[in-house]
């Protein structure tokens, strides 16, 4: 990374973030905004430090439920995407159901999950899964459907079976779509887990924020939001790094732009 690259990729987002917090702080102080409406960043960071133990414990729960749901969504989404991309009849049959299912607000499903599995981490895991598998299915199926027939002809001319073509062309070809969808899915999974926790749970950042809100501990609510934002960035960065590692061929030439 040369100096210019460093400035663009490290210094500029850092400056922007710091600028955002400084503006927020200045606005709160000059307008004398009450702590119960909008706490200043200094108050939020204060709360973050003061309650670091419960915040850490609850973050950990949210993190693992998110990741568990995301992992199931990845496996399920990949399998269903390949199945749907494999066969046109399956595609036609499954797609409307998928879209209908995806249109249901997942908040509405959480009470049912709690009814089935009780208050705890399982509804959060399932919500994270339900909300995040759809983009994976759609992307994998799209990647398979848009495979150039000429590339398939190369293999068909050799007498390759459909499975061979899938393994050698279809799946590698759709990997960039798959990894691209993971970036969307991980943030959705996160939203799903937290939504479920705010509806009904005994642990997790969502639950912590709900309790803090009930006790008018607004700085803790904001501390929770801050933790969510940071975790979201980290999870996104992790999937983006995995994407770059596995599908570098699809992003050729962008490094020098």
């Amino acid at each position, binding site marked *: 990374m040369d100096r210019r690259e460093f400035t663009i990729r490290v210094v500029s987002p850092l400056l922007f973030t710091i600028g955002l917090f400084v503006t927020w702080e200045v606005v709160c102080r000059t307008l004398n905004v009450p702590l119960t409406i909008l706490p200043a960043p200094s108050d939020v960071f204060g709360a973050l430090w003061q309650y670091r133990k419960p915040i850490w414990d609850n973050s950990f729960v949210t993190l693992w439920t998110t990741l568990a749901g995301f992992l199931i969504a990845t496996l399920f989404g990949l399998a269903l995407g390949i199945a749907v991309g494999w066969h046109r009849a399956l595609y036609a049959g499954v797609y409307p159901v998928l879209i209908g299912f995806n249109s249901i607000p997942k908040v509405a499903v959480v009470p049912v999950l709690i009814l089935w599995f009780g208050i705890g981490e399982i509804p959060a895991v399932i919500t994270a899964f339900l909300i995040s598998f759809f983009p994976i299915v759609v992307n994998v199926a799209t990647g398979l459907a848009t495979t*150039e027939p*000429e*590339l398939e*002809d*190369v*293999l*068909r*001319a*050799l*007498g*390759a079976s459909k499975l*061979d073509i899938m393994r*050698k*062309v279809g799946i*590698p*070809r759709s*990997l960039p779509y798959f990894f691209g969808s993971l970036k969307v899915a991980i943030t959705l999974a996160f939203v799903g887990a937290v939504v479920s926790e705010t509806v009904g749970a005994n642990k997790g950042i969502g639950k912590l924020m709900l309790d803090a809100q009930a006790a008018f501990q607004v700085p803790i609510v904001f501390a929770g939001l801050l933790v969510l934002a940071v975790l979201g960035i980290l999870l996104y960065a992790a999937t983006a790094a995995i994407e770059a590692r596995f*599908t570098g*061929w*699809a992003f*050729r*030439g962008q490094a020098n732009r």
Partner: protein
Amino acid sequence: MAYGRGAAAVRAIDDVTLDIARGEFVAVVGPSGCGKSSLMKLISGLHPPLGGRLTVEGKPVTGPLRSVGMAFQNSNLLPWRTALENVLLPLEIVEPYRREFSKDRFSGKARALLESVGLHGFADKHPWELSGGMQQRTSICRALIHEPEILLLDEPFGALDAFTREELWMALRDLQAARKVTVMLVTHDLREAVFLADTVYVMSSRPGRIVRRCEVKLPRPRDLEVTYTQAFQDVVHELRSLIRG
């Protein structure tokens, strides 16, 4: 052979008989849309014939033939594989190589093949790092790696510039001379057909029929110089006069 169904069906090829000897280099020329590529797809088994009979080496063709290697106008290299891995692809599919396939085992063979077409030190490059001519060379290597008895080339040099094309003529000429493989080349470049082939078949426009079989008597090995001789020009001229449109 026909495309489409019912009344809308287009008859692409009508009554075509080609007699190709082992080790012969055959070129098929004709106007655009005369069914050259359809003929190729039939022979390779990519398209089943709707009527008539198709035999290769006395056996009817029912599906893709393993004894055939194909290269197309676009190199159709898999962008996530290096040149070497692209060349190795048929060995991962075709028996008996498939059973005993490992990259280490066959990469020497693939490298040697790449070197024989002048791709020294490019084996580990990805397709986008290669020029169009290099991609096409790689594609021809891929068509040859499993040692097919018939090499089918569907306008393989059509997308290349004139100089690169002539370079590849030489590469193909040498490959064919060295391996004694039977080659069927579909092209609309008459000079290419005459320079490379032993026999040139001329097809008419739709429905495609063979209108002339023309043996090229120029001595081998042919050099690029031969394309400027009167004898060469005469053959090209004669072929041109058979193609209207």
